[in-house]
């Protein structure tokens, strides 16, 4: 089963100075308010955050419902915008794979892959023994996930009191937090190049194809960063 000590060590990471709790909480408050405004009831809002737990996906879903899109087009749009979760999983889970751990832990805890938990795990995994990392990860994931759910509830009930300026403040907070986290993570040539090139190419590709811009920008920028970084090491 899950080692309690490691789980709580992970869970407590949201209380640290680099915690995503404030940024994550604020953006899910905005999501809660948005969901209420487009006609979700409280149960639907809670379930959507619990089951989806990926901010851009929730935004795409909300927009699609507003314009009356079909379920198939929602599926495709969300799959596109959340496909970034695939490389995120592949660049995180090999760090935790251990034969002594049961497979279900990995299949269930992959639901916690989101930028906030991913970045915390990336900057802390070296301090944990490999066989215990998945328990630590489940702790981090449960913490960020519960913050998101509670914030959605708050946002739903606060929506009548939030004006446009406040919502704007809440909306900028999350990208700013992630920018800081990414800048903080720029410790190797590869990561530094990947972040700077990705930030430049993502918007450039948007002019050619808004749907593909994130994936294509990420693929091209990431591959260039990888090749230059490998050459540098050799």
């Amino acid at each position, binding site marked *: 089963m899950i080692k309690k000590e490691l789980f709580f060590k992970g869970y407590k990471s949201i209380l640290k100075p680099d915690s995503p709790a404030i940024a994550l909480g604020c953006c899910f408050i905005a999501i809660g308010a948005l969901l209420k405004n487009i006609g979700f009831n409280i149960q639907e809002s809670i379930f959507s955050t619990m089951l989806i*737990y990926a901010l851009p996906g929730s935004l795409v879903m909300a927009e699609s419902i507003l314009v009356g899109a079909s379920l198939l087009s929602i599926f495709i749009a969300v799959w596109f915008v959340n496909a970034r979760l695939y490389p995120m999983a592949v660049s995180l889970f090999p760090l935790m794979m251990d034969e002594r751990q049961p497979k279900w832990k990995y299949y269930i805890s992959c639901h916690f892959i989101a930028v906030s938990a991913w970045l915390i795990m990336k900057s802390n995994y070296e301090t944990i023994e490999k066989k215990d990392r998945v328990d630590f990860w489940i702790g981090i994931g449960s913490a960020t996930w519960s913050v998101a759910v509670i914030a959605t509830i708050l946002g739903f009930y606060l929506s009548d009191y939030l004006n446009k300026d406040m919502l704007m403040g809440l909306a900028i907070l999350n990208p700013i937090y992630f920018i800081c986290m990414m800048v903080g993570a720029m410790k190797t040539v590869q990561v530094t190049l990947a972040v700077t090139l990705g930030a430049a190419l993502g*918007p450039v590709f948007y002019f050619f194809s808004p749907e593909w811009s*994130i994936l294509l920008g990420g693929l091209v920028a990431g591959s260039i960063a990888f090749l230059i970084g490998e050459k540098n090491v050799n």
Partner: protein
Amino acid sequence: MSINIFLSIIVTSIATYISRFLGVLSSVRIKETSKIFRWFNCLAYATLAALIARTIIFPVGVLSEASYLSRILVIVLSLGIFFITKKNFVYPTIFSALGMALLNNLI
């Protein structure tokens, strides 16, 4: 409408979980010291950076109503605070929310 919302949530969560699940399945065969792991690491960071840049430059929702100048000013000032406070994450994020709300009224 309510049935639509329910189905939309289910469809969205399946579309989201697929990428996570496939990522775990692929991870079984990938060693953390391998080249392919390093490549995916670069892809993940680059894709995240692309996503964040897009959220700020071509925002959807309420942010699209804020001017470019105000958005860029908030980013530059927040990063300045991040470095001044020796890479503290709390100050720049709180500043950004207040700064954005204020600047939106000024610019």
